[in-house]
């Protein structure tokens, strides 16, 4: 054997291009910085730009831009501690892995099962968005449909994507990179033109309506809680940490970079959208409001370009989330929190068919409800709980300083950033609708109950 089994202090070896394990084989790291950024951006951008602007503007007016900015700041406060943890534990499973190893099995189980269901809710949300855009295609083509096709189409896409990931040999990475490049090109052109127009370069400056909505800051924060779903993608980068080359450099850059980039795009999008139409009007357009904004600025070609971009973006978000949900199932199954059968791989197709089914099944059911805002908020709730606990795990691990904890990236002002990050993550939950909070709490209680029933003897703290 060439590589001896790694000794404990070698485990977080930052520059290792592969995990050496003489007993059972090595794992090739195949995702570079661009691939990491593409995963983050590709997962996030679908929601913030192509689903939320109408809903957000209806609730908070032009100040919805502030709601998106608040979300970006919270996401950054979590992305920095998450980067440190990911370089100390560059393994698949992301946030669940950090929390179960840093805080123990109980919190780990809540987050692990919560992450699976959180991604299930997020996928359903993206699928309804995808269905809305696919339905808009019919509208543009001049077909009048008796019922809104968004939900049936979303369900169809959900079934299709699950089947595809079961049997297809997806080259997910290459596809994701290409989609993100096309999206960023279309958006940069469109938002650049829209911003100049709104500032009066091409004629009269549009008079912006009053920045804050009638309710003041409260609707802004409520909207921030709603649209936080737009920032869930950066944590997906940590779930493939085991595949990322040079993790100590590429993980922090990809997580922080993708949050900053999409944050800027979101804020500009709201600015452009609210300068084209009044907030109430935007709200009427619903999920596909951006198509109307584009039509207002550049006519039919613009509408078609944004429609195409919206299809791509929601498709890529939905696909990425379904795959992440299946990886979350694998992560908890590997640790014996749920039966081992859930992580079985089909040798012929090389895919985890049970885990994909556990992701795809509930996703399709939830998509059928068509409750966009509820789906988004429950997804955000479950992720925010995880984000808050990621910050707590960082503080805990820095205090305890176990031997194996040797991150190669250290979050600047770690305690302060993680402290504020935890407070902000938990605090944002308070601004959600009561129904979302109730569902979120029920899922957490059920996850903890399952842990007490099935996995009390599993000890994960500090376990590698």
């Amino acid at each position, binding site marked *: 054997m060439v590589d001896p089994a790694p000794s404990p202090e070698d485990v977080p070896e930052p520059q290792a291009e592969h995990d050496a394990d003489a007993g059972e084989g090595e794992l090739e790291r195949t995702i570079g910085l661009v691939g990491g950024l593409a995963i983050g951006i590709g997962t996030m951008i679908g929601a913030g730009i192509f689903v939320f602007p109408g809903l957000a503007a209806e609730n908070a007016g032009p100040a919805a831009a502030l709601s998106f900015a608040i979300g970006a700041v919270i996401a950054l406060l979590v992305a920095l501690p998450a980067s440190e943890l990911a370089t100390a534990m560059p393994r698949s499973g992301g946030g669940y892995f950090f929390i179960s190893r840093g805080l123990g099995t109980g919190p780990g189980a809540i987050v692990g099962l919560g992450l699976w269901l959180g991604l299930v809710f997020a996928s359903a949300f993206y699928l309804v968005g995808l269905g809305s855009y696919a339905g808009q295609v019919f509208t543009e083509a001049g077909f009048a449909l008796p019922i809104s096709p968004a939900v049936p189409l979303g369900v169809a896409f959900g079934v299709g994507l699950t089947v595809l990931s079961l049997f297809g040999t997806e080259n997910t990475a290459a596809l994701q990179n290409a989609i993100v490049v096309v999206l960023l090109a279309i958006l940069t052109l469109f938002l650049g033109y829209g911003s100049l127009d709104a500032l009066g370069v091409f004629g009269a400056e549009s008079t912006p309506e009053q920045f804050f909505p009638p309710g003041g800051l409260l609707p802004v924060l409520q909207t921030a809680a709603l649209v936080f779903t737009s920032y869930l993608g950066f944590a997906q980068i940590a779930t493939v940490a085991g595949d990322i080359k040079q993790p100590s450099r590429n993980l922090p850059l990809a997580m922080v970079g993708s949050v900053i980039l999409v944050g800027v795009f979101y804020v500009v999008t709201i600015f452009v959208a609210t300068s084209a139409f009044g907030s109430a009007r935007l709200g009427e357009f619903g999920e596909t409001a951006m198509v109307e904004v584009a039509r207002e600025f550049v006519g039919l070609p613009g509408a078609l370009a944004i429609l195409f971009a919206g299809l791509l973006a929601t498709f890529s978000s939905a696909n990425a989330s379904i795959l992440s949900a299946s990886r979350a199932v*694998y992560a908890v199954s590997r640790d014996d929190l749920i039966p081992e059968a859930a992580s079985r791989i089909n040798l012929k197709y090389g895919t985890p068919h049970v885990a994909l089914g556990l992701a795809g099944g509930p996703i399709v059911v939830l998509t059928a409800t068509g409750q966009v805002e509820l789906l988004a908020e429950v997804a955000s709730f479950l992720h925010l709980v995880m984000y808050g606990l990621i910050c707590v795990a960082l503080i805990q691990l820095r205090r305890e300083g176990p031997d194996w904890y040797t991150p190669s990236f250290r979050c600047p002002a770690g305690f302060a950033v993680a402290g504020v990050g935890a407070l902000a993550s938990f605090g944002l939950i308070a601004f959600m609708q009561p129904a979302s909070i109730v569902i979120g709490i029920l899922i957490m209680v059920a996850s903890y109950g399952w842990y007490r029933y099935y996995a009390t003897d599993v000890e994960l703290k500090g376990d590698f």
Partner: protein
Amino acid sequence: MSDTDRPTVLVPLEVLEGESLPEGTPRLLANAHVVLLGYHVIPGQTATEQAREQFGERAMKKLEEFATTLTTAGATVDTRLVFTHEAQTTIDRIIYEHDCLAVLVPNGTEGLSSVLVAVRGTVGLERTARLVGGLFADTDVEVVLYHILGEDESEDDAETLLEGATGRLVDQGMDADAVETLIERPETPIDAIARHAEDHGAVVMGETDPSVTTYVFGMPSEQVAERFLGPVLVVQRERPASDEAA
């Protein structure tokens, strides 16, 4: 023969897809230092860890069986097992890490009385000679050096080239009587190599730089291997010392 003189040859096997050590390989590589790479390609939607957990032990067991077979035949062996999303990335990394002189396209062979060596020019000749000499110097295997004439290349130039090549093989310990030469000007070089290969137990040829042609038709070594259906040893270019893939 001391271990440091042994030419390092990479043998990549897709071990879980049922690929096993082809017939004749142990004899072909008896004097080599073999890097036995078992790899398994996993689709993007599956974590490599997940596959390792489930299949690692089984794959490793198979690989060790093959390693024993090679060792019994006389080779020294390093075993690597890698779960990957991209086979080529893995193969390139292992070539680099072990500084492999050649990669074997693993096909079976029955007799091994002679080997066809395609010599393109002086570039890389030294590495080809080290491989051929290292593998076959102390055996009764005959070597045929084959050169395809370029458009404005004279037969004299080619003879000089192959004489030089023979000299290098003799330096590596080959018996001069065991080396023959063959010079031709065929229409399609790849067909010609594959056609001649049928009279031999194995082919040795050089690596080709990737280009549009190789992108469309595949690497010449792959094309030869597909037609010849026997083992092809592809001599690798020297890797630059700081070849750090970003």
